[in-house]
């Protein structure tokens, strides 16, 4: 994990920093919620609670717990510190089954002892300038005997002590119980770890040194960064002064509690950090584009575009078609109206009415085909997979769940609305008007020619002596008018139709771009955003955890 190496050089923490780290971890656990395993969340909660509780209690006192194996001589050392037979000692194992406390100094530590829940308290007579002033020494029951209640009591106190003094002896110093169950799990609080090798007088001095080295090796294997081992003998009194000096130094510095709390918070933070990945997955353009394409299919955009193109051609025909065949288009239904898309929304007039219209706007686009629906499912699943890439399984599941849950009716509704709300642009190109005028001119030519003939015929019928009709060479002008009008009208209409076809395709492309943007926005809001929210949570947990790690 991160920064294991830098801990030893860390500055002494202050209470505010501890409280901030606890709050940060608590926030991280809250943000992570069920995406963090229960036991890790519990660990965070316990560490944070303890940090809050301990920092609210006496900072002048340092709680030192004498813990260790049965027969290790915890009570003898305790008595040596107190200077009297306060704790019971003997040869029967185990002896101590209740925790005994002794308090040094003039300050009372009632609240602290209440919090520790130690009813057996001994007040050591205050001596001026006592280097141990402020010490709360606890004699714990053993943790390795067959009396399991002893172990439970030891565990309870160890949760709350500021400094651990592990007491062992040449026989038991390599026991699995002490190393595997006690020292190693608390190695993160290694600043708070002192090991006493008691009964060192029972082996030869050289052997004792050898054992000390072996014990230091075992402690390093446990993960204790700077193990401190003191060789003592409660019987000869050897080493007790050294131990007293170490304890006095810790008590005098008054920061053992904070170091312990920091160690626990770091351990909890480490556990929390292991539940998140180092980097956050990024939803690349690939997943987004695929989603947009699938959503376009599901929204029936092709049908809309077909209608748009047909509509363009139809209206172009209405404006630029040959005047005598324009009526024909009325035989066909308005393609946009059929999809209930062309409702002639007056743009920017009455904001409220438009809103209402948007709310009730339901297109009659065809239902997405199973193929389109499957494509949406697949695209959404891809988004989930892309978003879950590299995440630990709980986070990955959360991302996938979120993605899959987004492909619901809400998405379909939103798509429908997005398509309905997109203006399809019914403006009339200028050339249509010009072409319309031209077509009227050509129409007028035809009508004029026919009228000319009609007048001639009428005059003829009425037996007027009609002058010969004007001619161009041998061809009469009215005939030229009719033929020219028809040919020009029809030819021009087909040219216009071709141009309108090109225009229709261009409009199709433009509308497709706009619809594609609108659909992409829906995908962003309904699929991408929820997934990114989960990823953001993941990042937030990591940041908060790192912040707590300092």
């Amino acid at each position, binding site marked *: 994990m991160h920064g294991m190496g830098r801990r030893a050089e860390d500055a002494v923490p202050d209470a505010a920093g501890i409280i901030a780290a606890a709050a940060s971890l608590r926030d991280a656990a809250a943000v992570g919620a069920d995406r963090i395993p229960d036991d890790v969340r519990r660990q965070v909660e316990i560490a944070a609670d303890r940090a809050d509780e301990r920092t609210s209690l006496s900072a002048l006192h340092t709680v030192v717990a004498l813990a260790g194996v049965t027969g290790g001589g915890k009570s003898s050392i305790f008595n040596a510190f107190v200077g009297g037979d306060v704790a019971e000692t003997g040869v029967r194992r185990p002896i101590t089954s209740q925790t005994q406390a002794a308090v040094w100094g003039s300050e009372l530590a009632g609240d602290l002892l209440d919090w520790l829940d130690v009813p057996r308290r001994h007040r050591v007579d205050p001596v001026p300038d006592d280097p141990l002033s402020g010490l709360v020494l606890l004699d714990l029951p053993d943790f390795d005997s067959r009396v399991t209640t002893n172990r439970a009591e030891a565990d309870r106190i160890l949760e709350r002590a500021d400094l651990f003094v592990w007491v062992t002896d040449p026989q038991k110093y390599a026991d699995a119980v002490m190393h595997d169950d006690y020292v190693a799990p608390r190695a993160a609080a290694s600043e708070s770890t002192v090991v006493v090798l008691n009964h060192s007088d029972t082996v030869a001095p050289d052997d004792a040194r050898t054992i000390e080295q*072996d014990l230091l090796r075992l402690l390093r294997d446990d993960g204790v960064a700077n193990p401190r081992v003191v060789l003592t003998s409660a019987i000869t009194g050897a080493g007790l002064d050294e131990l007293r000096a170490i304890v006095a130094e810790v008590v005098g510095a008054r920061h053992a509690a904070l170091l312990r709390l920091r160690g626990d918070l770091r351990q909890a933070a480490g556990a929390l950090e292991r539940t998140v990945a180092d980097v956050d997955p990024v939803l690349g353009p690939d997943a987004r584009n695929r989603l947009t394409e699938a959503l376009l299919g599901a929204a029936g955009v092709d049908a809309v575009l077909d209608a748009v193109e047909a509509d363009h051609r139809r209206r172009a025909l209405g404006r630029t078609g040959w005047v005598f065949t324009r009526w024909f288009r009325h035989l066909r239904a308005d393609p946009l109206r059929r999809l209930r898309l062309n409702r002639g929304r007056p743009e920017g007039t009455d904001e409220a009415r438009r809103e209402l219209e948007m709310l009730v706007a339901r297109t009659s686009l065809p239902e997405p085909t199973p193929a389109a629906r499957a494509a949406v499912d697949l695209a959404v699943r891809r988004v989930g997979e892309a978003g879950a890439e590299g995440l630990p399984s709980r986070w990955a599941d959360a991302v996938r769940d979120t993605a899959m849950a987004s492909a619901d009716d809400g998405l379909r509704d939103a798509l429908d609305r997005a398509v309905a709300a997109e203006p399809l642009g019914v403006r009339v190109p200028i050339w249509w008007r010009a072409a319309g005028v031209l077509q009227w001119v050509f129409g007028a030519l035809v009508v004029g020619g026919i009228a000319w003939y009609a007048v001639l015929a009428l005059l003829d019928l009425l037996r007027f002596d009609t002058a010969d009709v004007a001619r161009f060479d041998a061809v009469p002008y009215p005939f030229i008018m009719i033929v020219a009008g028809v040919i020009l009208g029809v030819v021009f209409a087909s040219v216009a139709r071709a141009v309108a076809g090109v225009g229709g395709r261009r409009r199709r492309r433009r509308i497709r771009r706009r619809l594609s943007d609108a659909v992409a926005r829906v995908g962003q809001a309904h699929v991408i955003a929820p997934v990114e929210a989960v990823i953001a949570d993941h990042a937030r947990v990591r940041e908060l955890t790192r912040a707590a790690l300092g």
Partner: protein
Amino acid sequence: MTTPTSQLDAERLHQAVVGLRDVLRATELPLDVRGAAEAREERDAVVNQLDDYVIPRLAAWDAPLLTVVGGSTGAGKSTLVNSIVGDVVSRAGVLRPTTSAPVLVVNPDDRPWFIDDRVLPGLARATGASDGDQDPNSVRLVEAASLTPGLAILDAPDIDSVVSRNRDLGAQLLAAADMWVFVTTAARYADAVPWDLLATAGARGTSVAVVLDRIPPAAQDEIRRHLASMLAEHRLGDAPVFVVPEVTLDPRGLLPGDRIGPLRDWLLDLASDQQRRAAVVQRTLTGALDALGERVGVVTAGVGEQSEAIAALLTEVQEAYDGAAAGVEQGMSDGTLLRGEVLARWQEYVGTSEVFRQLESALARLRDRISAALTGKPQPARPVGEALQTGAAALIIANAEAAASTAARRWRGHPAGEALLADHPELAAPGGDLEERVQRVVRDWQSMIFDMVRTEGKDKRSTARFMAYGVNGIGVMLMLATFASTGGLTGAEVGIAGGSAALAQKVLEAIFGDQAVRALARRAREDLLERTAELYADERGRFTRAVEALGLPDDQGERLVAALDGVRRAR
């Protein structure tokens, strides 16, 4: 059990135990479900004990008594063994744990009993001087004339130090003993770990002698009384207790003769007294055999958990794919397949234009017939067929994908399934060429429909209608009718797009007759569902194969019970 009086009885029991050992050894517990760890541990422990102790003891009733000196680290086991033998055979020291390779001390006459792998077959034999490099996978064989023939003493590694290999080996060696000499000290005698082992020994009736080592003389009586009461609590009240006070060792690191005397004499007497020796062996062996029922029961329960887990996993998969099949069935009957593209193509097919769509379909048919007559080929039905094919394929694919992801998700929520998925990550997505296989299924189904139309329409080939639409056109109509009607039982079910299907139905009825169309539609429907079910069975097979790859035999539980029963009957 009685002493095997006849050679035959002993041989039968030996065979039965060997059989049980073989079955146990072959028992697989690959899934990490609840209880799997304990079951594995118990299986290995029982196999070890059968190999190390029960089988060799049954094979050679008169082999020397194997006494294992075991206990906590630092209790002074090696010093004790050295002192009994009267020579430094096992290194003693202050570093913990001192002994990591076991040392077996035997009389030179007994050497043949131990030099081969009759006992402790898992450990290599080392002889000669110790080279200081302790290999925990070997046992060092030391000959000492000071031991009575018939007695072998094994100095075992500790049972509670930080070195886990030592702990495991220590426990395994204790299980291989005819008798435990359990060594503890004044500081140790109330430790939890040794008492767990002693409790087991008490429960099984293992022969135990306890040595209270390194006792301060002043505390001797109090500790001895306390220990005796604790032993009585654990049904070990009759175990002899020897007290060895904390004394200065002689220059060779041995206990003075008068301190070790009582224990040494007791052991040597035991070895030379045929009857007492047999009683000790008998007691331990009986205990080990009696305990088999309960211990194998743990393994059997573990096997049960494995089978249950597998059944649960397979059920999840089955449910997921059943759901997929139901999804396809529903998609085929609720008319969804007929919407969208199919509808559009159908309209193109029957009506081509908006104007004509307003007119009666009869007119369309007339026109189609004319065009068919003119061109000599039916109106192209292909686009409708293709649209239907795409729709049906998409329906099947979508459901297969959903089923794969559902099954994978359910597995992920299961401790055993999670491990399986980690080994087979590809399971979460449908099989590689799914799309192609689905297309093939749908294509096969279509050709089956065309075949059906051809067979059914044999006599109607010449009718004008049949000619007008051709086999393809009628086949497509049959597909439409299939997707619109619920199995042809309720007739034409008019859904959103039902109009088109109703028209198809009408045409079909006119050609084949009412009854025949329903039968055809039903057959077409069932055929597609059947093909889909086959495809899904293939898909499901990927999961089943992953489970089968574990190689978990079905009858493990029964075989265990039978083998255990064999041992019981042979006793």
